[in-house]
């Protein structure tokens, strides 16, 4: 990362800080804060009947990360009201990525949001899925010639289901949930394993456009 030296914060250089009780601590933020292990491939269970049962359980209780990344998140609120009830399918919105199963990318992604979305995606635990809404994730949509939005989402994150539309109606999103459930029950929802196997390819694509690779100031 030597050519990106201009974007490294002075707060992220290795240095010594004084703790609250007066002791001196050596910190190296780029190693301490960020995990240096690669993601692992999640193997299926040994016997097929266990795997089928576990897949059924995963499909019937999909918990969604409530991160409204773009335009399409305005059609996610009607999904939680009694008219287009999503609770009957076992779908809930959770605020943190550690408790979520599915990440919905609702619409276009600018470069700044892509970095945060990738961080949230990497914090989710296996098995995890990604659903992409709208035509902006498929081929760029109407912002295809913009200098700040990405054109193809599946070069940066592995996508399991695409839902087309601008915006997709709540009924279309429910149909997307059904397609995802069918895919999980057959055992074909392998997005997270693809990410682990082709980790270097995805990282190379991400680093090509995200030049400011460190997260802004934390001091603890």
């Amino acid at each position, binding site marked *: 990362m030597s050519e990106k030296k201009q974007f490294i914060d002075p707060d992220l250089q290795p240095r010594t800080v004084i703790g609250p009780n007066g002791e001196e601590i050596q910190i190296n933020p780029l190693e301490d804060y960020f995990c240096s292990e690669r993601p692992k491939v999640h193997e299926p269970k040994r016997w097929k009947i266990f795997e089928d049962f576990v897949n059924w359980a995963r499909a019937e209780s999909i918990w969604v990360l409530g991160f409204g990344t773009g335009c399409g998140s305005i059609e996610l609120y009607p999904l939680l009201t009694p008219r287009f009830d999503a609770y009957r399918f076992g779908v809930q919105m959770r605020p943190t990525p550690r408790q979520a199963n599915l990440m919905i990318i609702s619409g276009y992604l600018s470069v700044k949001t892509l970095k945060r979305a990738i961080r949230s995606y990497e914090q989710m635990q296996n098995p995890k899925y990604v659903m992409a809404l709208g035509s902006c994730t498929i081929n760029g949509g109407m912002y295809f010639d913009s200098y700040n939005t990405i*054109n193809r989402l599946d*070069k940066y994150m592995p996508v399991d289901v695409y839902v087309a539309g601008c915006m997709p109606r709540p009924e279309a999103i429910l149909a997307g949930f059904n397609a995802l459930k069918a895919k999980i029950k057959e055992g074909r929802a392998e997005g997270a394993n693809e990410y682990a196997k082709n980790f270097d390819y995805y990282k190379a694509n991400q680093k090509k456009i995200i030049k400011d690779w460190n997260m802004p100031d934390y001091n603890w």
Partner: protein
Amino acid sequence: MEEIIKNIEKMVVITAKKRQRDNLYFVTTGKDQAIPVITYLRDYEGFSHFVMLSVADWMEEGEFELMYLLNHPVKKVDIGVCVRIPRENASMHTAHHLWEQIWSYQRELKEMYGIDFPGSPRVDESFLLEGWDQIPPMRREFDTLKYAEETYFPRPGRETHDPATYMKQKLYPNE
């Protein structure tokens, strides 16, 4: 409204003026006279509400045109003070001491167009873009389609369906 413009004409040289509607006038002055005119309008004429600061890029003439839009809340009229500055090493005097919100407009102009406002607080912070190392993107010489095609992988198979070119091919196929 006409008297206000006559009062300004007594103070500074106005290069152009235009009446757009009954309640909207545009007045063009030089670079060093713009901030005194705006201060005069705010303190003596009662234009106490600031609406926006905007820029139009006239690349063929080699100039930027800044526009300060002021609003009179009681008489319900607007006046736009336009300033022309050269494009190379563009900079303009800062107005952040007049209203509290102008520093954010000046920060955005510095990032998007490259116009410097020396002395404005927090003018070097990044506002909308992160990790941007090209020329300021709103300038007309920045080709956004070329940049998007090189950086973000476009999906192949996108032909243009521009109706103007299609009709032209149908009606005048020989040109």
